[in-house]
């Protein structure tokens, strides 16, 4: 059993014994076999098990009152806790804690759908409900809403939203959260916003209380354990459809972006994505997915990334556009059709260069599976983790971040990674630009291998990317557990005032430092370095 720092085995055993009086012996896990299930299945240290972050035990409550009792017991024995909703944010750490020896509080058994209000369009759920369970419940009860879910749907809407994950088709899931119920480090229950009133009828409908908005304090956070969330629901769309523009000239991307910004700001399009189809066609470590020509890969291997003349000549030769953008709309079919007709007319009327056409109609409801799909076909199928910085949706920023990343790979002499990456260009979170965002998320997979040395080199590369991108304003939107300190360090404005401010909150509300020590780089006083 891995002990948390500064905690004796006797203290931990006593705490676990007291946990059993709260949840029953069956739901306190301290046997190696059971505890190992809480390791990160996709750990960057998969080939170096001695370096993995591991829990000492796990406890699985079913009620808020049980969570409160667990927190009070943890305080008594100074046991660090690591709450997870379903522990399925694979690629960002799964259910493994930042601090080895923490006791995982597995909230999977808290899986009640407490209320679905179809009239006002909201739901109140517990953390253990998964996207798949929610979808099935909506279908069985003919509820005309569709959860905006990430690809693998075994995760939790609450867990995903709190991690500020992205769903399809609507992007940022936390933006749909309007109220939270939280067990604080002292065991008290707090409800945010209108949940502060005696009569809480407005809790799911209006996110603010009176005074500072508390909601955001509990996302990517270790200031409390979230036990309920109120979400506004996205209606099933009768139709989702996009409009695509493509050109064989790189400079045409600028007027495309200007036009799509205008159409999005006007509410004609929900969102849009930009990219460079020819460059992006090269990237993949699965030959069946990479369809780009070898000449493009060769240009991207060069430090200058290829000249304008070379790319234009190649684009004409292989007949793949250099500049591409797509916007989308979803909703009732006649309205979507009218919006896309207007957008097409606007692009023609304002003489936006390139060829514009309306894309294929997509279903109003996107599939929810537990499938990582094409990842299975890649060079390794032991798992992966994500490098995922945020960038502006401009041509300058898109090319600048691509150049920065490629040069990190070139400097490191990692041609394999350079080829797999190719060139990033896509959107802010949803297919065909349906997410109402003004940024882009660059999502890059780092595969894990059975070769420990290769994993070490890739981890070093990841750290270099975090730094190289962070210095230019491209911070991570979310980071794997084992890289959260580095990702947080890039938020260094005014000597890291953001981190220091949150640390002072943490110190004030969690004197024993028991809740998720180290989450997103926020450590309790006694574990802070420097």
């Amino acid at each position, binding site marked *: 059993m891995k002990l948390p720092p500064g905690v004796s085995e006797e203290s931990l055993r006593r705490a676990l014994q007291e946990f059993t009086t709260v949840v029953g012996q069956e*739901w306190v*896990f301290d046997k190696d*076999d*059971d505890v*190992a*299930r*809480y*390791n990160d*299945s*996709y750990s960057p240290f998969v080939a170096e098990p001695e370096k993995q972050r591991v829990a000492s035990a796990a406890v*699985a409550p*079913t009620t808020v009152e049980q969570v409160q009792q667990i927190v009070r017991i943890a305080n008594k024995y100074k046991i660090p806790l690591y709450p997870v909703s*379903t*522990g*399925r944010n*694979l690629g960002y750490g*799964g*259910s493994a804690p930042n601090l080895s020896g923490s006791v995982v509080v*597995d909230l*999977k*058994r808290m*899986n*009640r*759908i*407490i*209320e*679905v*209000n*179809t*009239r*006002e369009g909201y739901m109140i759920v517990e953390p*253990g*409900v998964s996207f*798949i*369970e929610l979808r*099935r*419940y909506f279908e069985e*009860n003919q509820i005309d809403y569709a959860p905006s879910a990430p690809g*693998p*749907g*075994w995760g939790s809407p609450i867990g995903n939203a709190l991690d500020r994950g992205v769903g399809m088709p609507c992007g940022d899931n936390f933006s749909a959260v309007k109220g939270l119920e939280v067990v604080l480090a002292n065991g008290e229950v707090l409800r945010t916003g209108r949940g502060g009133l005696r009569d809480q009828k407005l809790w799911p409908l209006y996110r603010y209380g009176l005074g500072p908005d508390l909601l955001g304090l509990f996302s990517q956070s270790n200031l409390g354990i979230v036990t309920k969330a109120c979400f506004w629901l996205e209606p099933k769309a009768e139709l989702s459809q996009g409009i695509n523009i493509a050109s064989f000239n790189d400079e045409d991307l600028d007027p495309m972006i200007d036009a799509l910004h205008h159409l999005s700001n006007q509410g004609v399009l929900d969102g849009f994505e930009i990219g460079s189809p020819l460059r992006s066609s090269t990237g993949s470590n699965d030959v*069946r997915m990479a369809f780009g020509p070898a000449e493009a890969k060769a240009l991207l291997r060069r430090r200058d990334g290829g000249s304008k003349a070379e790319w234009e000549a190649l684009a004409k030769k292989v007949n793949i556009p250099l500049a591409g953008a797509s916007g989308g709309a979803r909703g009732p079919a006649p309205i979507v059709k009218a919006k896309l007709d207007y957008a097409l007319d606007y692009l023609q009327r304002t003489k936006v260069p390139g060829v514009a056409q309306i894309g294929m109609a997509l279903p109003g409801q996107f*599939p929810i*599976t*537990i*499938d*990582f*799909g*094409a*990842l*299975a*076909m890649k060079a390794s*199928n*032991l*798992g992966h983790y994500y490098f995922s910085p945020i960038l502006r949706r401009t041509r300058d920023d898109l090319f600048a971040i691509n150049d920065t990343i490629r040069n990190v790979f070139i400097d490191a002499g990692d041609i394999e990674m350079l080829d797999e990456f190719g060139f990033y260009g896509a959107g802010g979170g949803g297919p065909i630009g349906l997410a109402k965002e003004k940024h882009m998320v660059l999502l890059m997979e780092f595969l894990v291998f059975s070769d420990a040395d290769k994993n070490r080199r890739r981890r070093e590369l990841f750290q270099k990317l975090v730094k190289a991108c962070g210095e230019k304003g491209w911070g991570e939107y979310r980071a794997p557990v084992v890289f959260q300190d580095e990702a947080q360090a890039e938020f260094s404005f005014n000597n890291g005032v953001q981190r220091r401010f949150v640390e002072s909150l943490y110190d004030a509300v969690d004197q024993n430092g028991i809740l998720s020590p180290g989450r997103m780089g926020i450590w309790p006083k006694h574990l802070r370095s420097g």
Partner: protein
Amino acid sequence: MRGMMWQVTLWAAVALVTGVRVEAAAPVAAPSAGKMVYDQWCVGCHGPMAAGGRFPPAGTSILQQRYQNKLPAVLNERTDLKPEFIRTVVRQGIALMPALRKTEVTDPQLDALIAYLSLPKR
């Protein structure tokens, strides 16, 4: 008109339909309870390719590559899966497949899943 509201305990519903009680009381029903577990936890990765899809789901893809048509790549078409093998893979994970915890698939649900995957196939 008032909006429609539901109050449910999903855990109770899942437990009821996926056969927590099945093992001891009605072993004949266990495979059907196991199918519920399969549909929730396995089919997303181990089912057939969706209509219009580019690739089969992850698990089916991997098994296709591994077995090269010598064995079915879709898991519930297999006839050779041994109970202990299923138990080990579910609890420990393998390759891209993460381990499933007892809070996700309980031991009785795992028994029901094993019963379902052990059914004779046509």
